[in-house]
């Protein structure tokens, strides 16, 4: 790249700004990467890239007893991905013993075609990490999801780098209670909430309490969302399980915690 001439001679503000912008290709590319939008304006506008960064590590930490809910949220995110390529789900066997294994008809009930999913079963953490990295490096899947209990800073940096290089989202379910600091692009804490009912009073749409705990270049936040598996659509839910109220509440986050 040629050195910016505008800095040296006549100061034309517009020219200087244009030259400076040329110097910042990284931020430009950061903005234009394939972010995965939630489709909810309140959340998407809140996130620095207008959605989950497409190439990066995203951690999902369940609240106590909410592991199935957190996994369900990951499945909902996967189901919304538009690309037709396969999705790789990497699960350790011990995790499947505790929480059961993914059920194809249940995935289908959340709007994810089970045929897209390729399940990789690993015996221990080392294998899990290796398999995740392999899947990212190959660049073949549309996204990689997995569950892992412990993840130290170094491993998380490796995974974040691999995901960023491949430009693929890596959605990790963290099953351990104590969390080390990590290099993930975002970390979400997922809580289960009572599901939205349809007009017959039957469970219709699952609801999740989302807490954005950390976000690269962003602020923490908190929302209550529900998910419609037929339309593959997230929407904000009111704290009250009242339909009229939830409509009028619109798309306003419940509370926005600001951290300077």
């Amino acid at each position, binding site marked *: 790249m040629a050195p910016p001439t505008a800095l040296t001679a006549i100061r034309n503000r517009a020219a200087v700004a244009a030259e400076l912008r040329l110097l910042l290709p990284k931020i430009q590319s950061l903005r234009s990467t394939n972010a995965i939008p939630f489709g909810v304006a309140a959340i998407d506008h809140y996130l620095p890239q207008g959605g989950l960064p497409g190439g990066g590590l995203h951690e999902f930490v369940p609240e106590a*007893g*909410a592991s*199935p*809910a957190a*996994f*369900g*949220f990951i*499945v*909902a995110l996967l189901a919304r991905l538009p690309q037709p*390529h*396969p999705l*790789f789900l990497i699960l350790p066997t011990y995790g*499947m*013993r505790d*929480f*059961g*294994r*993914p*059920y*194809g*008809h*249940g*995935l*289908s*009930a*959340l709007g994810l*075609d*089970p*045929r897209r*999913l*390729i*399940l*990789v*079963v*690993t*015996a221990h953490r080392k*294998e899990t990490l*290796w*398999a995740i990295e*392999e*899947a990212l490096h*190959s*660049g*073949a*899947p549309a996204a990689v999801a997995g569950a892992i209990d412990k993840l130290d800073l170094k491993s998380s940096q490796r995974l974040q780098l691999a995901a960023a290089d491949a430009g693929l989202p890596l959605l990790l379910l963290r099953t351990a209670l104590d969390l080390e600091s990590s290099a993930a692009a975002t970390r979400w804490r997922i*809580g*289960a*909430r*009572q*599901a939205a009912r349809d007009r017959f009073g*039957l*469970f219709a749409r*699952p*609801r999740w309490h989302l807490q954005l705990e950390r976000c690269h270049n962003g602020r923490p936040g908190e929302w209550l969302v529900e998910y419609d598996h037929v339309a593959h659509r997230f929407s904000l839910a009111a704290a009250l399980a009242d339909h009229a109220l939830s409509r009028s509440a619109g798309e306003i986050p419940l509370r926005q915690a600001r951290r300077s």
Partner: protein
Amino acid sequence: MLVVTAAGGPRIAALNEAAEAAGLSPGEPLADARAKAGDLQVRAVDQAADDLALRRLALWATRYTPTASPWNAENGADGFFLDIEGAAHLFGGEEKLLADLSSRLEDFGLPARFAVADTPGAAWALSRFHPAPCVVLPAGEEARALTPLPIEALRLSPETCTTLRRLGFKSVGLLLDKPRAPFAARFPAELLRRVDQALGRLDEPLVPIVAPPVYHSLCYLLEPIITQEAVIALASRLMHTLVHVLTRDDVGARGLRLCLYRVDGAVETIDIGLTLPTRNVAHVVRLIDLKLDALAAMQEAGFGFEAIGLAVTRAEPIPARQNELIEDAGDAGRTERCAALIDTLRGRLGPQSVRRFTAIASHLPERAEALAPVTDETPAPWPEQETEKPCPLLILPRAEPTEVTALVPDGPPRRFRWRGVTYDIADAQGPERIASEWWRNRSGHQPSQPTRDYYLVEDEDGRRFWLYREGLYGRETAAARWFVHGLFA
């Protein structure tokens, strides 16, 4: 001296030189032998170990040609056939091959007899009954070469041989001159079949010890190699040579076998399966590397490997295309990379570790689907759900018993205790009644499974569970048992 138990008491099966000098011979009853020589050391024959050793030797011999077939019991079970057609010139002719083979066998301490002929039958006869230990028979000479040999050279059963000898047919030649019809009428079909096989009138297919490969590439080393890097480098060279042939025939490898021939005669075999036919050298070499990591083959290299063979055991057509133009562009490259990824994962984690969901038509939730190892690239279509019935996201490997409090015995649950935690149920949906699959138990005597009533329950914190009550209250059981079967998002 080794003995085998037979009708009428133990008989001698094999003996050493000292025993032979004492005037004993194989087939003699042990009692007679003891009368002739007093101090005999007698052991029982271990037929299984013999078979295993022969098999190992035949495997080792695949270094000469891919088709090696150890002799079964009716051939005497003490040798093997090698189909060296098309392989002999690699060693500079049949004589040179035999010389190499015999010198190597001698190094193992195995005295052996060899014969090369156009038919397995003739080769068998010559190796057993020809005075020279090493015979190479020119083509079309079978009848002449067999003429002076005794009648046993035709691989007949002992009864047939005895009858023939009684009738005066002591050598093969006497038999060959006579008209066939009387023999066909008076002897088992075996006799004429063996004659025809020996003379090449009837085909005798060999049963190879390992499935013969479609394409094969082999490399002999002057110095044995020990390190994994060296094996990888050689495998890559072999794959390069194979790729030319594969490209010529427009096929790719779906299955590969790497054979490592150890100096001491043992053979290590590594089988590699691929999801899509491939001609990608780097990918294949990577898979081999992963396999070598996992296997202990390299730790057991001993004095090293003196020959390495790479064979394509399964080939499937792949259409020719220009790699350079559509590299990283479009779907084809991605499908290929996906297959490569599956191969890599399977290579390290095991063939059972990469799975895909397949739906099964069954009403029982645990039977309604299977996680089958990924086999090919076209998954079966997933059935559309006909109704909006609840399906759990996670299903427990076994339904876990739980203690449930309900207002009435056949009513919805109010509270349950599972894995040491008590959950208060805020809302329950159900029951969804699933009866047992009575058609499965029609022949069996075990009672059919009780009916299940499934409830989808939500606790006060929004966790959703799939519980079921086993047995219809009052009709099938007096005290229904409850189970947790699945978890919802």
